[in-house]
């Protein structure tokens, strides 16, 4: 249950703070939330990964739909990807990875003090 709540918190908080801070604030968010929730390292990674991935997926899908894939198609071509959905996948994976590693670090760091 705590992992779901942590994931949810990370997704919402990342969305809000990103409007005021550069993108790397997502790592701080995932780190702090997992630190406070005191999840074990595996769950910390999963919550961090999913939290950011959900946030980024939601925003990317929202913008991409309104844009009718004009930008994602051009960016996919620029990155040598055959389809725009792969550009969304790449985006979500990159955000998720950052969030996951940060969550994992949050958990491990908490364990230094436990």
């Amino acid at each position, binding site marked *: 249950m705590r992992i779901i709540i942590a994931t949810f918190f990370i997704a919402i908080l990342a969305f809000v703070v990103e409007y005021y801070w550069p993108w790397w604030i997502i790592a701080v968010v995932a780190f702090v939330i997992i630190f406070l929730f005191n999840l074990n390292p595996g769950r910390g990674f999963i919550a961090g990964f999913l939290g950011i991935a959900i946030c980024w997926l939601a925003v990317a899908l929202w913008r991409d739909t309104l844009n009718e894939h004009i930008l994602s198609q051009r960016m996919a071509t620029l990155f040598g990807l055959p389809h725009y959905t792969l550009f969304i996948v790449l985006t979500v994976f990159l955000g998720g990875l950052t969030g996951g590693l940060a969550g994992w*670090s949050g958990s491990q760091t908490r364990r230094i003090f436990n």
Partner: protein
Amino acid sequence: MRLLRIVPLLITIVLVYVLNKPILGLPAFGKLLDPINGCWANAEDVNNNYTQKFSLQQLQHPVTIWFDDRLVPHIHAENDHDLYFAEGYIHAYFRLWQMDMETRAAAGRVSEVVGKKTLKFDRTQRRKGMVFGAENSLRVMEADPRTKTMLDAYTAGINTYIHSLKYRNYPLEYKLLGFAPEQWTNLKCALLLKYMADDLTGYTEDIPLTFLRDMLPKEDFDLLYPEKISGSTPVIPTGTHFEPASLPTIPVPDDSVWTHLQPGDFTDTRKEHDGKGSNNWVLSGMRTQSGVPILCNDPHLGLNLPSLWYEAQLQTPDMNVYGVSLPGAPGIVIGFNDSISWGFTNNYRDVKDFYAVEQVKNDSNSYWFDGKQVPFVKRMEHIAIKGEPDFIDTINYTIQGPVIYDEHFHGPGGLKRPLALCWMAHKSTNELLALYLLDRAKGYTEYVDAIFNFQCPAQNMVYADKDGNIAIWGQGQFVNKWKEQGRFIMNGADKDALWKEMIPMKENPHVLNPPQGYVSSANQSVTDSTYPYWYNGYFLEFRAWRINQVLGETKKATVQDMFNLQNDTYSVLAANTLPIMLRYVRNTSLTPDEKKYLNKLINWRYFLSADDVAASLYQIWWDKLYRDIWSDDFEKVPDNLWPLPERTMQLLQTDSTLKYYDDKNTPAVEGLKDMMVRSYKETIDTIGKLEKTTGVEWYKVKNTTVEHLAKLPAFSFANLKIGGWGNTINAAKHDHGPSWRMVVQMSKDIEAYGVYPGGQSGNPGSKYYASFLQNWVDGKYYRLLFLPNQKQQNITDIKYTLTLQPKL
């Protein structure tokens, strides 16, 4: 052990650091892909509502901007300040990155954001004196209260927009290339205008022509490189009366005024050049169905995205003008207002000359002039390079201008000799004032007063008004030159070689309401030989021959006829050369394939249509023939300056035994027939290869491409299905072509049409990015919405209304 738990944190920090930093020329991925602030923020909602209200400091009164369904802004302001402020704001809103890059390119500041690979380009820009010229022009622009207001307000509008931006709102290209918008300045406007001047008057043949004059026997040089092509149908119709020159004819100085070149002055290989062209014409009412003049213009420039042009309508209580503007400069450049319309083609008279500099021995700080030692004026150019220390170039200025080439920076063909550049684009000129007045001109007299301020780049300016007048001016600032002055490199130490007096503007070639009932220009020679001043230039004749042929037969023309003519692909070159070429090849022994294609050519009617195979055959054949004839004789000529296609055509028509037809690289002596057959067989060979690769339809062979300014194929459009070539009216070449097609019928309510190969938004993530492109390819036009000059508008024509309000 416990401390090992810090390792994940370190890994995370490294990952974030790497994703936040551009590496090996790649963008910072984390920053770029972030959906909230990165590239996804540039994915514009296709239904984005531009109806908004902004409160902006510095505005004096509210400004209303109506957007039509093509996103063309119709800006209504109460005074000049507010109008140009709003134009600057809107230009920046839709085209900021492009304006930034073009002015960086003009100023030689590209390396600052791209890195060392553009250093040579930046040095070239500095050494030709681009910034020097822009600073000179800025002084006169800021000295005139009208253009001062224009510039200050326009710059303030751009900066207001820039200051409102967060990283999230930056144009996509800033995020990809990893730099940020910087403060706009009036100097940048001046730089943009010099960028155009360079684009249009930068081409020069002085160096290769000097080489050729010194290499060839005089009679051969005159035969192959005549000063003007015979049979020209000049811009100012033959028979037009010119007033006698008010300035005296200057006697030609003796031979010491020239500099001679040796083959040893050049060090490396040659590169090719590429000319530009444009068409414009006006039919008077006697040749149109409506009985009122129709003005047409299609300036040919580099085909890029974001487009060079941005359509707009500008209104103040004393002005109502529609046309295309250049993002980066205020005003409308080509268009029409309530009373008149106008269009430009490049004039191509030579206004760029070179002087060989004789440095004083053992004193690198001075040079010889008129028997005296004169110190160079030094100008330090700091070129910032991304990721590296600045490069400092010290550029010497002589009395003529900047020393563009020397032993440290070689000229074309690796020329080592120091050359100073004297160029009209260095002068203090105020083209902005010309545009200011032109946009407001109510009739012919005001038009003429306006264009007299347009000095460089010289343009052939067509004119039509609602009273039925038509006119054309070969307008620019020109020098009263002695015969052949500036055609070759001159001796910089000789004072007779200097530019003398300027020709008074009113003596520039022009004609008002000529009896033939039309005027036209397509970069051909400006006048016949009765014009009293001597000039040379880089004139092209093919399109002019075709235009004059068609217009001479035109009666009762409609705007549709004019669309057809702008999209005409008839090749005068092909019509004149193919029958000769076929004659030589027909009766030789041919393979079945060669015969099959020959039949295609025999039945071809000389139109370079998009999907025509015969057009490809002819163009490839001509290209190979041209190379086979000239490449052996002229491979060492800098810039590959070979005899013009116009001249080559005339030689094929009149002389079948020219010694240059022989291929010097073979022991046998070849004649024209050998060249014809050889080039035909090469052509069929090439066609065979193309059949297996790209395809043989003409548009596939030439591959007209509209390329993004950062050369990113993902943001560009290649292989456009459009016909034509440089020597047809629809001059769609590989990366050059009609950059704005406009047709204006001067009826009581002006009826105007236009299209350009791009879209109003510079954002590759917007549906307006290239929204006009397909219609441009197809030769279709938009009816231009010319709103009456009033505060309220009929709401059905308007899609969005953006209101800019003064901030209290």
